[in-house]
C-alpha cells in the first residue's frame, strides 16, 4: 500500500491546472477528494507521475440556486450537499443519496465532481445525475463545453471527458414531485449491490412524468427510459411497478462479483426499484 513516486501540484487557478495537464499529458491526472484515486495509487493500479490537486481552486467550489436551475461546483463535497438547506429543498433526492455514500469521514473529502468524473460504475452520483438530467461542464484547452450526464458514460472508467479537460461544474433543474434513492449494500462504506434513483410527478391520480436510473448494475450507470415510461399514465400500482421492473431488467447488465451472482443482482435490482418507486410515489 505504498504508491510509486509522484510530483504533487496544487494550482490555485483553473488555467494553471489546465496548463499542467497540457504540459504533462498522460502522466498527469487531476484529483478532487482523492478517495478513489489515492487508494488506486497505493495499490499501484494507477500510476500518476504528476498529481494535480484541485483543492486550492476556489472557483470550483460553491452551490448556487438560480431560480429552477441548480449548479454545483465540481469540488463541492458530499458533506456540503448534505448540509446545504437550499439544495435539500430544491432537490431533496441529492441529500438522500449522499447520505448513503460511504461514511462521514469520506464524505468530508469526497466531491460530487470526482464522483461523477471518475466513471466508476460503483459510484452513486452518476446514476443520480442521469436521473436528474444533469449537464456536466467540461473545460479544456479549446474552451468550455457541456455534456449531458446521460451521454457522458461510455464504459467503466471511460467517459466523454478527454484527458486534457477538467469537469468543473454540474447543473440540473430543481425537482418537483416524489423522489427516492434506494440502495442495498453489504455494509457502511460499501458500493451498491443495487441502487435505484427515482423521480416522479403526479397529475391527479396518475403519474405524469418519471425518471429512473440504476447504479452498479452494468459497467455504466443505467438510465432506463423504458422503466420510466412504464409508470407514466399509471397509478404506480403493482402492475405498473412490475412493468417498470421488467423494463429495467432488460436494460441492466450486472456482473458476478463478491456481492453475488447475476440472478441475485437482478432480483435485488427489481426489489430495490419497486421500493424506490413506492416511496417516491408516496411523496408525490
Amino acid at each position, binding site marked *: *500500500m*505504498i504508491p*510509486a*513516486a509522484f510530483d504533487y501540484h496544487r494550482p490555485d487557478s483553473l488555467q494553471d491546472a489546465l496548463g499542467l495537464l497540457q504540459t504533462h499529458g498522460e502522466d498527469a491526472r487531476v484529483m478532487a477528494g482523492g478517495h478513489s484515486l489515492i487508494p488506486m495509487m497505493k495499490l*499501484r493500479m494507477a500510476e500518476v507521475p504528476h498529481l494535480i490537486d484541485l483543492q486550492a481552486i476556489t472557483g470550483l467550489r460553491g452551490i448556487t440556486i438560480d431560480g429552477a436551475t441548480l449548479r454545483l461546483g465540481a469540488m463541492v463535497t458530499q458533506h456540503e450537499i448534505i448540509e446545504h438547506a437550499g439544495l435539500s429543498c430544491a432537490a431533496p433526492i441529492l441529500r438522500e443519496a449522499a447520505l448513503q455514500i460511504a*461514511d462521514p469521514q469520506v464524505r468530508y473529502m469526497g466531491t460530487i465532481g470526482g464522483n461523477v468524473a471518475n466513471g466508476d460504475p460503483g459510484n452513486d452520483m452518476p446514476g443520480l445525475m442521469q436521473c436528474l438530467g444533469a449537464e456536466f461542464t467540461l473545460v479544456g484547452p479549446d474552451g468550455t463545453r457541456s455534456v449531458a450526464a446521460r451521454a457522458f458514460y461510455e464504459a467503466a472508467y471511460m467517459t466523454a471527458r478527454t484527458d486534457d479537460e477538467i469537469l468543473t461544474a454540474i447543473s440540473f433543474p430543481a425537482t418537483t414531485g416524489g423522489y427516492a434513492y434506494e440502495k*442495498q449494500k*453489504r*455494509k*457502511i*462504506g*460499501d*458500493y451498491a*449491490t443495487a441502487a435505484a434513483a427515482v423521480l416522479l410527478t403526479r397529475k391527479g391520480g396518475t403519474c405524469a412524468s418519471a425518471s429512473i436510473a440504476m447504479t452498479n448494475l452494468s459497467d455504466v450507470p443505467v438510465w432506463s427510459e423504458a422503466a420510466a415510461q412504464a409508470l407514466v399514465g399509471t397509478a404506480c400500482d403493482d402492475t405498473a411497478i412490475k412493468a417498470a421492473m421488467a423494463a429495467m431488467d432488460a436494460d441492466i447488465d450486472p456482473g458476478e462479483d*463478491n*456481492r*453475488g*451472482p447475476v*440472478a*441475485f443482482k437482478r*432480483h*435485488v435490482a427489481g*426489489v*430495490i426499484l419497486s421500493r424506490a418507486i413506492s416511496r417516491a410515489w408516496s411523496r408525490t
Partner: protein
Amino acid sequence: MNDLSPERDNRIANLKGLGCSRKRVEDVRFTQGKGNYVDDIKMAGMLHGDFVRSPYAHARVVSINTDAAMALDGVIAVLTAKDLEPLGLHWMPTLAGDKQMVLADGKVLFQGQEVAYVVARDRYVAADAVELVEVEYEELPVLVDPFMALESDTVLREDLAGQTSGAHGERRHPNHIFLWEEGDKAATEAVLAEAEVVAEEMIYYHRTHPCPLETCGCVASMDKVNGKLTLYGTFQAPHVVRTVASLLSGIEEHNIRVVSPDIGGGFGNKVGVYPGYVCSIVASIVTGKPVKWVEDRMENLMATAFARDYWMKGRISATKEGKITGLHCHVTADHGAFDACADPTKFPAGFFHICTGSYDIPVAYVGVDGVYTNKAPGGVAYRCSFRVTEAAYFIERMIERLAQELNMDSAELRRINFIRKDQFPYHSALGWEYDSGDYHTAWDKALAAVGYDTLRAEQAERVEAFRRGETRKLMGIGLSFFTEIVGAGPVKNCDILGMGMFDSCEIRIHPTGSAIARLGTISQGQGHATTFAQILASEIGIPADSITIEEGDTDTAPYGLGTYGSRSTPVAGAATALAGRKIRAKAQMIAAYLLEVHDNDVEFDVDRFVIKGAPERFKTMKEIAYAAYNQAIPGLEPGLEAVSYYDPPNMTYPFGAYICMMDVDVDTGETEVRQVYALDDCGTRINPMVIEGQVHGGLTEAFAIVMGQEIAYDEMGNCKTGTLMDFFLPTAVETPHYTTDFTETPSPHHPIGAKGVGESPNVGGVPMFSNAVHDAFRAFGLKQSHMPHDHWRIWRIAEGLGLHG
C-alpha cells in the same frame, strides 16, 4: 473476621480487587493515541524490508533477477532463498511439526507467498524495489478443494516426496498431512446403526481470518559489538519466539531479547512465526542495522494465518424421545500449503474433540484428516481455544438438525441432554474431564430472560403472515449453548515445540508498599494491566492502583507461553494468585515479628495482618513492606518478592447460553438482529466491566464471521477477499446491540475459581447467529446452508426453497 463495618468495606473498596469494575488503566494511553506499537518504533539507521510475493497459487519459480532492484538508489539488499540456504534458514519449522518456506525455494504454493525480501533505506524505496524484482514463473495445476487434493495426481509438497508419515502419523496421499482420531469408532458405528433416529449433515465452517486492526510486523536489531539481538514484534508468545529464534539462528538465548510492545489485537493471528520475522533478523545480522518490517492489510489477509476451513461430516443418533445415544464426526481440514496450525504439539486438530459439547453423549468418535491445498497456511485459533469454535458450531448445528428429525423444539432437546450438575467432574466420551458446570440453571435463566415461548409464538405468527403474503420477512431465533475448553494447559499433555504450557508471575513489593508484577503472558487488548492487578490486590492487600503489571519483555518477564486460547487468566492468573500467596506468607511472618506474636497468631484481613481476636492490633501491608526492607528480621531474608510457575492440573470449562432474534428479508437477503442475549459463566468474575467488553468484542467477531467474513478463493487460487472492501469487518452501524448476563460456577481447581472468558462469545456466538438464520427457514424445510450468511447466500436459500414465487 466478622467485622463488617463501613470502615472495613472502605478498605475493601480501596483495593479495587476481585469483582470490581475498575476502569482499564491501559485506556488512558490508547484513547489519547499514546500507545507504543511496533510501527511506532524508530531506531537510528533503521532499514525497511518489503516482500516480493507470488501472484500465483502454484507455480515453479524459474528464475529471480534482482539486478534492477539492486540498482535502485537506496536499496541495500535483496534476499532470496539462495541467500538463506547457506544459513539453513530458507525453510523454518512450524508449530505443527511441519516446515514452511521462508522464501520461495523452487516453487510457490499459495498466492501471496514470500518470494524475495527487499531491504532499503526507506519504506518507499523498498516498495519501489519490490516492483523491480523480476521473477519468472511456470504455472502449475492449482488445488483449492481439499477433497480434490486428496484425489489429485498433482503433488503440492514435493519436499515431502516419499515421506509416508509425518509429525502426526501416517500420510496416505502426497497431499495428506495426518489422520487424527479420538473415541471409540466401532462402538459409535454400532450405536448409529441401531439408532431410532439419526441426523446426518455436512457442516462447513468456512475459511476466515482474525484480521487484527494492527497487522503483523517486527523490528530486528543485531548489535554486532555486544552480540545481542533485540527483536520487537507483534508476538502473542514472546518467550516462545525467543526460544525459536535461538534454535534457528544459533544465537544463545541470553543474547536474544524479544519485546512485544503494545499490540493492536491478535486473535490468534500473532501466535506463529512468519517469514517476515526471519528475514528481518537475517537482514539485520547481514547489515548490522535495525530492520523494520510491517505488513500491509492485503498481506495480512492473504498471507498470514487464516482460521477454520473445516468440513465436518456429522452423524448424531437419539431415541425417539430425544435422548442422544451417539455422535460421529469426520473432518476434512484444509490446512493450506504448509501445516502451520498453532496447536499444542500433541493435538493436530486442537481441542476439536470437545465436540460432544454440553451434552451427555455416551459414545462418540472423531477423525480429522489434514490436507494440503494451494492456500495460505495457518489454521489458528481465531478468538477461541484451539479448534473449539469449530467444535461448538458443529455440535450446535447437529443439535438443531437432530431436533428437526425429531420434530422437537431444540431448546427442549438441549435440556434433556445436558450434562447434569451432579455429573461433574464429567468424563466425556472423547476423553476430557469437565471440571464444573451448571447448564440447566443457565439455560432456564436465558430462556426466561428472552421470553422464549413468546418469541416462538411471534415466530409462528410471522410464518402465517408470510404465507398469507402480508410480509416478506421471516424471523429466526438463534439458540446456542456452548462449553469452552481453555487454559492450556497441563504440562503433561500440552506443549508448544516442547515447551510445557505453564505460565508464570514474578512479584516485587517496593519498600513504600507499591508493587510490580511481571508475567509470561502479553495483553493484546485484553486489559491484563487492569485485571491481574485486581487479582493481586485481593491476594496481597495492596491497592490495584499501586500495582504495575508488566508483560512482553523477555529480559525482564519470567518465562511463559503467552496469550491465546483464553489461557492468561486460567494459567498466568493462577500463577499470579499463587505468587501473591507466597508474598502473603512471608508478610505474615514479618507481621508476627512486628506485633511480637507467633506467626499463627496473626491472620490476613483485606489489607493487613491482625492479631486473632484483637483486630485493633495490626500491621498494614504498607508497614510490612517497609519493614521487609528496613529491619533485620531474625530468620528472614530482606525484601519481599515471589515468583510462581503454574502448571494447571486441568483445563477450565467456561460455558454459556446465548440467544438471538433476527429478521430475514427473503427477497434481498438482508438481515437485522433485533436482540442478542448472552449469558456467560466464566467462574469467578475478576472485572465485570472488562468481561462485558470482552463479550461485546467476541460477539461482534462472531457476528462478522457468520454474516459475511470469509477468505475466498477462485478456482485459480486467487484470493478474492484481500481488502476490507470485501472482507467483512462490521462497523458500529452493522453491529447489533447486546445484553449480557451471567451465572457464576467457580472452577474447583483454579486458585481463585476463574475460567477465562475472552473467547467464549466467539465460540457461542457463531452457532447462535448461524442457527438464527437456519431457524428462520426451518418452517420451510431448510436443513443446512453454509456460512457466511451474506445477502446473496440467504437469497439463494429462499430461492432454493421456492420462496420467490
